[in-house]
């Protein structure tokens, strides 16, 4: 579960498991739409939209302790804002991989939390 900083998540949940699951669900529900925006922006080589979409994911991920996802989105935001080059599909691929890990990590975390408290 290296994809999720559990300490951060427990902290913002104020040690309340139910609330933690609520937050994780809010994050999981919100993410597909944000990733879609990012994919489209990268596909269209739109640096401004890429920066905005990456920024949005950075914040949401950071909030629930998906630190690595937050970090690589931040890097994509930076490079897109600087408009050094068109957004690279490689960066997007890296984000997709990390997102898959985060989603899996969230699932495991939820299972552990519910079975532990049940």
């Amino acid at each position: 579960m290296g994809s999720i900083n559990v300490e951060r998540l427990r902290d913002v949940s104020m040690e309340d498991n139910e609330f933690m699951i609520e937050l994780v669900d809010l994050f999981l529900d919100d993410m597909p739409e944000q990733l879609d925006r990012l994919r489209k922006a990268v596909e269209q080589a739109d640096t401004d939209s890429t920066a905005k979409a990456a920024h949005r994911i950075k914040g949401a991920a950071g909030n629930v302790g998906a630190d690595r996802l937050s970090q690589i989105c931040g890097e994509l935001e930076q490079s897109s804002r600087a408009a050094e080059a068109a957004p690279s599909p490689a960066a997007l691929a890296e984000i997709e991989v990390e997102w898959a890990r985060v989603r899996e990590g969230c699932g495991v975390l939820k299972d552990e939390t519910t079975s532990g408290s049940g």
Partner: protein
Amino acid sequence: MSLLESHGENRPTLESKADAQVLNALVVDDEPSVGRVVQRALEAWGHTAKIVTDGREALQLILKERFDLVVTDWEMPGIDGLDLCRRIREVRLPGYTYVIMLSVRRGKTNLMRGLSAGADDFMAKPFDREELRVRLHTAERIIRLESKLSQANDELRGLNEGLLKKSRIDPLMEINNRLAFEEQISQFHEICVEREVAYGIVMCDVDHFKRLNDRFGHQYGDEVLRQLARVIRSSLRSEDLAFRYGGEEILLLLYRQHLDGAERAADRIRQKIASSPFPMPGTEMSAHVTVSCGVASYPENFDSTTGWMGLVGSADQALYKAKNAGRNRVMTAELYESAAKTA
């Protein structure tokens, strides 16, 4: 023993309760999980908090409901956090709205942009609960101060209005005083001119007032003036005005009265006073009090070169004539004939 115990236990919580404020907060963030975390933290500290996910919605809600605190994200689609801050400061909301801006943006430039837009405080994301808790101390202090200030302001404004009113009323006769006259006469005159409406000025003076004071004392003199004012007030219509112009001199402004009408009104008041008892408190005695009146009116006695001041002078001269003619009577001013003068 039980008393001591309860004292020891209750005191700190009582104090902290007296200190604690329940803030009504609005959390604005387009990331639902972030908004929820902030809301949950605020609620855990005893505050109430609502969440909206964009600036437009926030603004609509702020105009409808009073919020002490707004915690807003910077980057949002539509109206962003900066815009929201500016609009909150533009619209004059009742009470103070303390705004904390939350952003992943860092650095002095961003901090300054946020504060210049009208934010009170700036917090870096990811959201840190402890940091918000500490920053809320400042927020609470400022919100409390602001509410005390506006309360004090309201009180002062009320006091001021009261004083303004009081300073224009004669405490003895309970009618307008000379200051009120100076302030109101030119406006009164202009209104009458503009509406082409006549008005009368009656200068009314108590006969032999000094003798009355000397013989029966100043306390009785005051009582006479009080009673006199009561008689006059009860004789006037709501559109007329009475002023204590001098020591025992009362000036009346009679709306929509030509010279003859003002003269009749003055004479009615004169008769009423002459037939009113002025009892001496604690005795069976009652002095016979009379007044003399001089009357002038607009437009009959009006001279545009001297204006309303000339009218007051004419009424005063008429009063002088009434005194010389034996008192307890009403005299009118000489008609002003502009045609004769210009000829």
